[in-house]
C-alpha cells in the first residue's frame, strides 16, 4: 500500500510539471499584455516611461527565461507578485481559497443529500412510474445551466434583506450562521446539477449490487427488505458514488467560477477570471497550479479510499 501511494505521488510530478509548462506559455499566447491592460486607453506615456514600465512588468526578457525563473521560484514556494496590484500572490490566493473550497464542499454535501436518496428510491423501484419521475427530475437538475439558476436566485431572493448577505466572507468558525447563509444558494446552484450525477451513479450501482447473489440470498433467507437494503446493498453500492464524487471535485471547482461571479463571492474562481481579463500572469499561473494540485491530490485520495474499501482492486497502473 505504501509503495503504491509513493508511486502514485511520484507520478504527480510530471503531470504538475506539464500543467506549469502549458499554463505559463498559454497565458502569454493570449493577445494583450498586463502592461497594456494597466495603461488602458486613456493614458499617455513617453517612450522612456514605457521602457521603465516594461522592465517593471517583466516584459524585457524572453519567455523561456521567465519560465525557468518562475519555476525556480515556485519550487521554493514563491509565487511572485501580482502585476496589477503589486501584492504578493500567495497570501491573496490563500485568503480566497477557503471560500471556494467551502463552496465546493457545501455543494457536494447538498448534492449527496439530494442525490443518494433519490438514487435509492429509483433503484428500488426500477422501471416503475416513481423511478421514471425521479430519474427525469434528476436529469432535469443536470440540464439546468448553473449561472441561469444562480441569476434567477439572485433575482428572486436578493431583495429580502439577509437572505443572500453581501460583502465580507466570514469563515464558518467565526460566524457559522452568516457563513451558511452566504453559501447556501450558491452551493445549491452548483449542487443541483451534481446531485443528478450522484443520483445516477447511486441508482446504477444499487441496481448492480441488488442483482448480486448475496443480496438475493439475504432476501431469500427472509431478512427484512429494509435491512437488506441499508446494511448490505447500500454499503457496497456507495463505493462508486465516492469515486465519482472525488473525480468531480474539479468540475465543482470549475462551476465555482461562474457562480462566484453571479453571487459576487470573493473566491479563487472570480480571482482567476479577473486575472485572465487583466493578464495578471502570476495570479493566473498560481491559481491554476493550486487548483491542479488540489485536483490531482483529491483524485489520489479517492483512489486510495477506493483501494482501501475494495481490497480486490489491483494496485497497479492498469486499473486506472
Amino acid at each position, binding site marked *: 500500500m505504501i509503495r503504491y501511494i509513493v508511486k502514485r505521488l511520484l507520478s504527480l510530478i510530471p503531470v504538475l510539471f506539464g500543467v506549469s509548462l502549458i499554463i505559463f506559455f498559454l497565458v502569454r499566447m*493570449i*493577445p*494583450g*499584455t498586463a502592461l*497594456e*491592460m494597466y*495603461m*488602458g*486607453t*486613456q*493614458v*499617455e*506615456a*513617453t517612450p522612456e*516611461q514605457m521602457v*521603465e*514600465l516594461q522592465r*517593471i512588468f517583466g516584459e524585457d526578457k524572453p519567455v523561456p527565461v521567465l519560465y525557468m525563473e518562475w519555476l525556480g521560484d515556485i519550487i521554493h514556494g514563491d509565487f511572485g507578485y501580482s502585476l*496589477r*496590484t*503589486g*501584492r504578493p500572490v500567495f497570501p491573496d490566493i490563500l*485568503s480566497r481559497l477557503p471560500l471556494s473550497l467551502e463552496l465546493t464542499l457545501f455543494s457536494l454535501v447538498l448534492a449527496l*443529500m*439530494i442525490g443518494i*436518496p*433519490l438514487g435509492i*428510491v429509483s433503484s*428500488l*423501484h426500477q422501471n416503475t412510474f*416513481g423511478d421514471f419521475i425521479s430519474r427525469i427530475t434528476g436529469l432535469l437538475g443536470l440540464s439546468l445551466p448553473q449561472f441561469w439558476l444562480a441569476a434567477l436566485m*439572485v433575482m428572486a431572493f*436578493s*431583495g*429580502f*434583506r*439577509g*437572505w443572500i*448577505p*453581501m*460583502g*465580507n*466572507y466570514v469563515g464558518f468558525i467565526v460566524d457559522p*450562521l*452568516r457563513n*451558511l*447563509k452566504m453559501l*447556501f444558494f450558491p452551493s445549491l446552484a452548483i449542487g443541483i446539477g451534481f446531485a443528478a450525477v450522484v443520483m445516477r451513479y447511486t441508482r446504477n450501482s444499487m441496481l448492480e449490487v441488488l442483482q448480486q447473489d448475496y443480496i438475493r440470498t439475504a432476501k431469500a433467507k427472509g431478512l427484512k*427488505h*429494509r435491512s437488506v*437494503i441499508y446494511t448490505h446493498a447500500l454499503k457496497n453500492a456507495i463505493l462508486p458514488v465516492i469515486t465519482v464524487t472525488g473525480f468531480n471535485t474539479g468540475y465543482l471547482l470549475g462551476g465555482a467560477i461562474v457562480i462566484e461571479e*453571479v*453571487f*459576487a463571492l*470573493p473566491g479563487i474562481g*472570480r*480571482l482567476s477570471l*479577473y486575472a485572465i*481579463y*487583466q493578464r495578471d500572469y502570476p495570479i493566473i499561473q498560481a491559481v491554476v497550479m493550486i487548483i491542479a494540485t488540489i485536483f490531482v491530490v483529491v483524485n489520489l485520495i479517492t483512489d486510495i479510499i477506493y483501494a482501501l474499501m475494495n481490497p480486490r482492486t489491483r494496485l497497479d497502473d492498469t486499473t486506472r
Partner: protein
Amino acid sequence: MKKNCMLSIAISVLMLLVTTGLFANGAADNAGAKPVVEKVLTIGVDQEAVGLDPHIVTAFSSHRRIDLLYNRLTRLDENLSVVPDLAESWEIPDNLTYIFHLRKGVKFHNGREMVADDVKYSLERVLDKKTASPGRSYISLITSIDIIDPYTVKINLSAPLASFLNALTSNNLSIVPREAVEANGNLQKVAVGTGPFMLKEWIPDNSMTLVKNPDYFVKNSPKVDKVIFRVIPEAASLLSGVKSGDLDIAIINDGATIRQADKISQVTVLSKPGINVRTFGFNTTRKPFNDKRVREALALAINRDEIVSLAEFGMGSPTGPIPVSAKEWALPLSKLPFSAPDYNRAKALLADAGYPNGFTFNIVCSSTYEGGLAVAQVIQNELKNIGVTANLEVVEWGVYIDRWVKRDFDSMVEIRGGSGDPDRFLYRTLYSTGGVNNFMFKNAEVDRLLDLGRSQTVPKERKTTYDKLQKVLAEEAPVIFLYCPNENYVLGPRVEGFKPIGNGSLYYISETSVK
C-alpha cells in the same frame, strides 16, 4: 415498497427544509442586531481599487477611493468649475507663472502639517519619468517649482497652458508626504493624505473601510464616522443591496438597472450627464476612412437619440466634440454640421467618394460597458439605411485594449474620459501628435486651433476658438462623438446631502450624512 419510496422522499425533503429553516431564523436574528452608535455610510461599487498611489493609478475605481483620501491644489465643484482645495488662492502674474497660496494648518494623516515643500515634492514625483505617472502629461510644461515660503509655491511653465488650473484638479496630482513614499516605496497599499477620510482596512475584492479624519481642514466635515466601500460587480445586486438596506449608496453604470430603480419607492436615483464621451472613431489612415466624404456620410447615418435610448435606456445626452456637461464650452448639436441623420445626403457623399453601393468594414468593440457592444449593434443597424455593411468584431476586453494600442482597427466604439476644459480633452485626443489620437488624424487647421486655444487666457477669445474647432471637427469627422453617459447613483432613504459632480468624483461624500 411504496412506503419506502415515500420515506426516502420525505427524508430528502426534510433535509432541505432543515437547511432552509436555518436560514429564515438567521435572517430574523441579524436584522435586529445592528449597532446604531456609529454613523456608517456603505457605498456599493462594481470594481475593486487596483492600488491607492494617487500618482500611479490609472483605474477609475482607484480614483474614487483617492477622492476621499487625498487633496489636490484645486478641485472641481458640482458645476465642474475650478475651486480652491489645498491652495486657498492663486495669482497669475503672466500666463507662464502661477503663484499658489496654501491653506494653513492642514495635516496629513500621519499628523504632520502639509507645507510648500510637499507640493514641490509631489509635482516633481509626478514629473519624474521613473514614477511613470499618467499625470505627467498634464503638467509636462512645468519648468520649475519654487518655494517662496512654507505656504507659497511658484510654478513656472515653458508655454502658456490655459487648462493648467483644471489639470491640477486631477487626482493624479494629489499632494502626498515625502516620508510616506520613502518608507513604503510607493503608496499603492497605504494612504497618507490630507483627505476627509483615512484608510483603516482593505480586504481586496471585498471591502475597504475608511474612518473619519478628525483633523480635516473643512469645519464640520466629514459628517459620518466611517465609509465602507463594498465591491459588488453585478448592477442588479448593487440595486438590491440598496433596496434591502445593506448599502446606502450604489454607483451604477447600467441604464437598465437605473430604469428599474426608478420604479422602487424606497430608493432615490440621482442621474446627471457625465463628463465621459462615447465615441465611434475611424482609423483615418485606412481605406475608405482616409476619405473625409466617407466619414461624413457615416456621420449622417448616425441617430444619436436612437443610440441613447436603445443602448443606454435613455440614460445619456447626445453630444458633439465637447461634452455637453461642460456647459460653458459645448455647442448644441443643432449648430454643428453632419450631426443629424440625412440618408440622402449621405448616399450622395458615398457615391461621390466612389462607393455608390456602399462598402463593408469592421467595428471593434467589447462586451464590457466601456467596450460599447450595445452601441456598436445599434450603429450596425443604422448604417444599413445608407447601404453600408458593418461587421462587428466583438473581442475580449484585453484584446480590445491590445487592438487600441496597436491602432489595429477600421473603426472602434470607445468611451473617452472627457474634461470640463476643452484643451484637456481635445488636445491629447485630436492633435496630430496627441497621446491618445489613435485615429491617427492629422489636420493643420485642427492643430492650429488647438495650439491657439491652450495659449488664450481671455475666456471670450478662447470660446471663439473652440466654437470654430467644434465645427471643423464635426465636418472632418475623424471620430463621431455620440453621447455623454449619465453618472448614476442610487441612494437609500438614510442618505442626506450627497451631490454628484459629473466627473465621477465622490468629493461630496464628506458632506453626506446618514439619518
